[in-house]
């Protein structure tokens, strides 16, 4: 029953992420509902137990994206695995403020991994040579920093709203 609820919440999240969430865009940035939800799942249940949900959800997200296929799923899996590992080695309990720290770290890691993999995909010619990130100009970097800060705030807000609900549904027995 619990698995059913988890799968249902992910399908709803993917549908919302591709239809409603783009309307919440403020200065090019919108909250990453699926990243926050996958992160909460991994924090509350461990990556080893829910890896298949993470893989399916991220692959479905990739289907809806115009980015090179696999870019989002690889970035999501690497990010949540690293953050889950960090959480297990640093913190012993699931607390609200710890989760908020992890959301900040996850947002930064996800964007970094996405940028690195994008360059890698271009290098091995899986995707067109289109950089979705900055060149070396100062303006662009300032813009990127501002976007990252906004993405962190948005994801924190999303995580704060979802935390207690997710704890009820996802928390392991």
């Amino acid at each position, binding site marked *: 029953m619990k698995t059913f609820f988890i799968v249902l919440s992910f399908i709803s999240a993917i549908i919302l992420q591709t239809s409603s969430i783009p309307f919440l865009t403020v200065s090019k940035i919108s909250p990453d509902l699926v990243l926050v939800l996958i992160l909460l799942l991994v924090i509350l249940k461990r990556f080893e137990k829910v890896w298949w949900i993470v893989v399916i959800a991220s692959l*479905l997200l990739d289907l809806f994206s115009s980015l090179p296929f696999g870019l989002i799923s690889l970035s999501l899996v690497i990010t949540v695995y690293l953050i889950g590992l960090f959480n297990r080695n640093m913190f012993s309990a699931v607390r609200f403020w710890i989760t908020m720290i992890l959301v900040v770290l996850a947002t930064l890691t996800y964007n970094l991994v996405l940028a690195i993999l994008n360059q890698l995909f271009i290098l091995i010619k899986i995707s067109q040579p289109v950089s979705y990130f900055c060149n070396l100009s100062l303006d662009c970097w300032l813009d990127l920093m501002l976007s990252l800060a906004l993405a962190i705030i948005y994801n924190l807000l999303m995580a704060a709203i979802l935390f207690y609900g997710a704890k009820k549904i996802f928390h392991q027995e």
Partner: protein
Amino acid sequence: MTGRAFCFLKKIVLECILMRKTLSHPFVLSLLIILGFVFLNFQGWLKIPQSIFFQITAPGKEAVYEFSLKVNGFVNFIFSVNQLNQENDQLEREKEELLAELTYLKEIEAENEFIRSQIGLPLPDQKELVLANIIGQDPSGLGKSFLINKGERSGISQKAVVITAGNILVGQVIEVFDSSSRIRIITDPASRINAKIQQSGLTGLIKGGSGSNLTLDLLPQGELIQREEIVVSSGLAGLFPPGLLIGQVQRVISSDVGISQMAKVKPAVDFNSLTMVFVIK
């Protein structure tokens, strides 16, 4: 000799166990599965499952998308209620100007048709359009694309041009499925369109980027470009028909050392309120 062989065998078995352990680790397994799917997609074998998945989720997504659009419209209305009077006055003025322009253009159209018939030139071809609803947006926020509910079955083909009412350029079809298609909008970083400034006829290349504005690049140096000048597709390269409205010049970026100048262009389409588009067949 047997001892050495035994040691070698033991080493191989241990390495196999270690490799099996590594491969069965959920993280490694996840990466391998995703890479497997990347390979399948690269070969084009994911097209059918993708098409079926879009077909199943399309009705739900369409309903959620329309609902979100209504909520967004309502929220925008609440926040802009103070500016409505001012906006209304401005729109009234613009309407009068456009009406005068329309009357003048109709006169010219009639004259054009008459001259064409006199010299025996055929009238320009009427484009066949397919009306489609938007059913979803790119979830990443990096790539700018959306899905529409018409695909191969409706005669849509790859690279078809997508416009909205008023001959305003929206984008281009980049992927076609059975009953849906993916459209890359003009602001996507991968988008490139040959364009010209309508008043002066200066040609350049419209590029998307990370923001919501466009960049009109490769404009000849030394030419005067003014704010609010209209940018349309030039039809060069034959990918986009000429004369489709792209946007208005907002800012000109020029330096003495550059061989060309650039202009920032505000797209004419409001992508946040777009629900339907036309695909040119």
